[in-house]
């Protein structure tokens, strides 16, 4: 693609990146209460890694480079009555920091809204420019 990046590309791609982040937050929260029989089998929170995609100098948008597992360790809980409990009577709770996830969700929503606002302003200005001289 040789065409220069427009403000619509910048804000649009940023919105999809924020949406990926919202999706990972949703799956982290959905799995926050899940329990596993082993440490390795326990769910660990997912995090997207954002990367700048640079076009001409100063013009850059953002993309999700990859989604990684956060190093939040699952917690061991002694619960012999649990059907998944191992020989010692322990189960492993998913490694998800619920408070941090909720804060992340609010931040994602705010940044998504900012990009929508940018898109709206750019659209109005472009339409006004098209109407110039009529």
């Amino acid at each position, binding site marked *: 693609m040789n065409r220069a990046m427009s403000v619509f590309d910048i804000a649009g791609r940023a919105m999809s990146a924020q949406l990926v982040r919202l999706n990972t937050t949703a799956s982290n929260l959905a799995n926050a209460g899940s329990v596993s029989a082993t440490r390795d089998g326990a769910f660990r929170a997912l995090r997207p890694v954002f990367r700048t995609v640079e076009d001409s100098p100063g013009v850059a948008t953002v993309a999700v480079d990859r989604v990684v597992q956060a190093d939040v360790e699952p917690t061991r809980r002694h619960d012999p009555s649990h059907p998944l409990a191992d020989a010692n009577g322990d189960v492993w709770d998913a490694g998800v920091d619920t408070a941090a996830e909720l804060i992340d969700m609010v931040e994602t929503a705010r940044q998504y809204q*900012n990009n929508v606002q940018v898109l709206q302003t750019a659209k109005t*200005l472009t339409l006004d420019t098209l109407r110039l001289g009529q």
Partner: protein
Amino acid sequence: MAQGDGLFGIDGTALRLRSQRLNLLASNIANAATPGYRARDIDFDRALSLASRGYSAERAGNESIAYRVPTTPSIDGNTVELSTEQTLFAENAVQYRATLSFLEGRISTIRRAWKGE
């Protein structure tokens, strides 16, 4: 042809610079959560004075790009402060619209001259 001579004069150059700055500020807002991203902006006064000295609008804009100095640096190296960027974005949008109405004025003047009113 030097800048500021043609039909649209300095306002045409200003509109191009405003649109370039709109892209830059949109990039900053898009990268608000990218670790290590450094916010950039166009020094509009400098760009316009370069353009009036004969630089093309695009070159004048590119030569006036500078990194923003953050008021509170963050630990991940990102220097985007959303409040600053949003204020400047809104300001730039209003100034873009102002430039549009100056251009509107030029066009209607020329129209009147054509019709001999």
